[in-house]
């Protein structure tokens, strides 16, 4: 059966065909759709775990019981899951365990461009690098086999372009699931130093065997022949496809299993061509290794850009540099400049807009984390000052506070990121007697990545009811005395609460609670309109940054009734009473 699948759909398909028993993950672009697709197959246990570390630990347990399992995350998620990964490499697995990590060359939706292949080397586990959806399905099946053959976890590294591109994939039927039964073996599963030192030696031996295996593993590593032996390309991932189209005459060593390095294969390939170039996205990992084998090569040291996605345009530029011709890509139509940018914005009716609008009225420092509300850094709100990583909003605030910063510091987290890694930060602030004002912008959803459930939503990934964790009760249990729940669209009350809590000389938590309008798919209230007779054109409503408020040809603001969500934020902002509910046929509530 041939299906037109995205890379992410193909990974889910491959896991299912490979007899996966359990799958764990935390949402993160571009990895999210893997679990969202896998959960549609019958008989696979799937869960959104609170964070990536939890996901990998749970998968380790499932694997030690004998089950095949996968863990999914985006690149930065592996930073969170790095601790169990390092030790799991020593302890090893029984059922095949594949850690699927989605890298983001070009940083389409990520704060860093880190190259997950470094983690494979650090953890000393194999990494597979599919070029498209066909590879993605096949490599998932191979990854399970390698994981069980060597008794270690395997990383399947995908990228944004692989995950979000479709190809026609020949699919098969699922193999039976592994029988699970725990077998006591403490010298393997409890890596006390006594046993850990022995495991360490085994890991090194395992890597030597894998390097030899990778050199003869034709379905993962092979040469795509070319007509001319002047130049040979060593590459991995989607870059192989671009090279095939733009340099069809050059033989390509396509490494689907780039590490442990297939040394003998690299040597043999290099000997078959006059000149070698390594073209890889991310860091020059293959390139530096090729050079360490005593093989001269081009790469990031001369012709390949060091940063960013290697798009077809950049492969063209690399080709021209290699040829020394330096032709520019012919562009018959000029690139337009001066067009207005179209950045992502808070949706009409977004409760984050209301909360951050209220914060514009206070002279405070705001620290935040990763979510839709990261957009509050942009004009017109400009109300996020520092952002490092997921779950970091509270702790950054605490550090600024303890450093003696004179201004009050407000730390913001989302509901999903509070559960992800924010609770320990809250504990830190309370236990160590900080004075920051903490806010959870609670829209009952992991909205940024497409509305996944989490421990606070009362639903599992399969839509089944589940106990809903209470942020308020958790905060109180951590010893937080001042806890307030507030509707951000009630601006008067929110302003009062913010003023009181920011003035307090002890820590406090405000839970700004209102649903994501995109998720509930209905208007929050009656559509608003601007009464032109009352409008003084002060443009205060434009400071909300709502896409439903536009400026008309006469220079005055007006509300687009199609876009207006009826959230009433602009109405509470207008000092002249010019904004009021209006009856639009078919647009009520």
């Amino acid at each position, binding site marked *: 059966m041939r299906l037109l699948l995205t890379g992410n759909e193909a990974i889910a398909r491959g896991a299912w065909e490979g007899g996966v028993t359990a799958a764990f993950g935390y949402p993160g672009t571009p990895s999210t759709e893997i679990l969202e697709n896998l959960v549609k197959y019958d008989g696979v246990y799937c869960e959104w775990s609170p964070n990536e570390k939890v996901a990998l630990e749970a998968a380790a347990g499932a694997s030690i019981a004998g089950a095949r399992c996968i863990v999914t995350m985006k690149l930065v998620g592996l930073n969170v899951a790095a601790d169990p990964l390092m030790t799991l490499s020593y302890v090893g697995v029984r059922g095949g365990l594949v850690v699927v990590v989605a890298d983001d060359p070009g940083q389409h939706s990520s704060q860093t461009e880190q190259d997950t292949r470094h983690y494979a080397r650090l953890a000393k586990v194999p990494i597979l690098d599919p070029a498209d959806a066909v590879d993605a399905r096949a490599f998932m099946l191979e990854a399970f086999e390698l994981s069980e053959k060597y008794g270690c976890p395997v990383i399947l590294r995908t990228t944004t372009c692989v995950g979000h591109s479709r190809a026609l994939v020949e699919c098969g039927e699922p193999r039976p699931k592994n029988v699970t039964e725990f077998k006591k073996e403490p010298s393997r599963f409890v890596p006390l130093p006594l046993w850990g030192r022995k495991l360490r030696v085994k890991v090194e031996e395992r890597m030597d065997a894998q390097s030899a295996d990778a050199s003869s593993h034709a379905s993962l590593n092979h040469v795509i022949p070319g007509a001319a032996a002047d130049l040979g390309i060593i590459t991995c991932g989607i870059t192989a496809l671009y090279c095939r*189209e733009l340099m069809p005459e050059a033989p390509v060593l396509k490494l689907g299993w780039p590490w442990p390095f297939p040394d003998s294969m690299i040597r043999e390939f290099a000997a078959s061509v006059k000149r070698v170039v390594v073209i890889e996205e991310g860091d020059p990992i293959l390139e530096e290794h090729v050079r360490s084998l005593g093989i001269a090569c081009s790469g990031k040291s001369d012709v390949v850009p060091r940063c960013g996605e290697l798009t077809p345009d950049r492969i063209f530029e690399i080709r021209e540099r290699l040829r020394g011709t330096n032709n520019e890509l012919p562009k018959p139509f000029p690139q337009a400049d001066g067009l207005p940018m179209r950045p992502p914005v808070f*949706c009409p009716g977004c409760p984050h807009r209301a909360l951050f609008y209220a914060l514009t009225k206070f002279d405070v420092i705001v620290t935040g984390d990763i979510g839709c509300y990261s957009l509050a850094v942009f004009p017109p709100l400009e109300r996020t000052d520092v952002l490092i990583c997921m779950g970091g909003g509270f702790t950054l605030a605490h550090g600024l506070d303890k450093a003696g910063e004179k201004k009050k510091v407000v730390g913001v987290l989302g509901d999903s990121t509070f559960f992800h890694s924010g609770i320990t930060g809250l504990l830190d602030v309370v236990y160590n007697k900080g004075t920051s004002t903490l806010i959870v912008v609670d829209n009952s959803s992991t909205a940024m990545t497409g509305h996944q459930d989490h421990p606070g939503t009362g639903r599992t990934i399969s839509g089944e009811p589940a106990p809903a964790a209470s942020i308020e009760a958790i905060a109180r249990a951590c010893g937080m005395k001042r806890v307030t729940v507030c509707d951000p669209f009630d601006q008067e009350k929110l302003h009062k609460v913010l003023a009181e809590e920011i003035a307090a000389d002890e820590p406090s938590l405000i839970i700004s609670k209102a649903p994501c309008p995109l998720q509930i798919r209905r208007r929050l209230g009656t559509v608003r309109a601007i009464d032109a007779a009352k409008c003084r054109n002060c443009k205060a409503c434009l400071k909300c940054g709502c896409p439903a408020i536009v400026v008309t040809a006469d220079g005055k603001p007006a509300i687009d009734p199609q876009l207006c969500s009826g959230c009433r934020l602009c109405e509470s902002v207008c000092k002249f009473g010019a904004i009021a509910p209006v009856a639009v046929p078919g647009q009520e509530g």
Partner: protein
Amino acid sequence: MIKSILLTGVGGQGILFAAGIIASAAEAAGFNVTTNEIHGMAQRGGSVTAQVRYGEGSFAPLAVSGGIDVIAAMEHIEAIRYAHWLKPGGLAVVAKLSVIPVTVTNGACTYPADVEERLHAVFPRLVYLDCAALALELGNARLANTILTGALSKGLPEISEDHWRSGLLARVKKGFEEANLTAFWKGRMLCSDI
């Protein structure tokens, strides 16, 4: 022969649905097909683009800029923004619609007042359709993207009408088949360029 199509617009306009129809039609016609979708911020008013590629010698889901055969845009400036992706002699199919970005509302940028003139100046082969009005004539504003897809289908003559029909039916939800087929044929008929 390799054919590359670039679809562009704003989140919520049905760009990915249109890409799906083209991909399914190309698959029905027996081509090896790939697509790519850039939609990280689609729901939050950002630009959305998709590419569909098919034909012998096509392996990658993205073309080089200047390598696109047909651009289809659901919004004026999104068409102009990607004009440099088009090949010499390439076709542009553009919907008559301006969606004002928030950067214009907040005064940081201006939306070109002469956008229609610029479209005609930029694209020698332009099919310019008021898809929104045409969709309303058919009684459903959401059919605008299907009308645009019908129009661009004329620029891809290697896919037969039968294959367009099966490609469309492979993508449309049950109960909406007839409305979408009507919209598609209307767009195809109105593509006067070819």
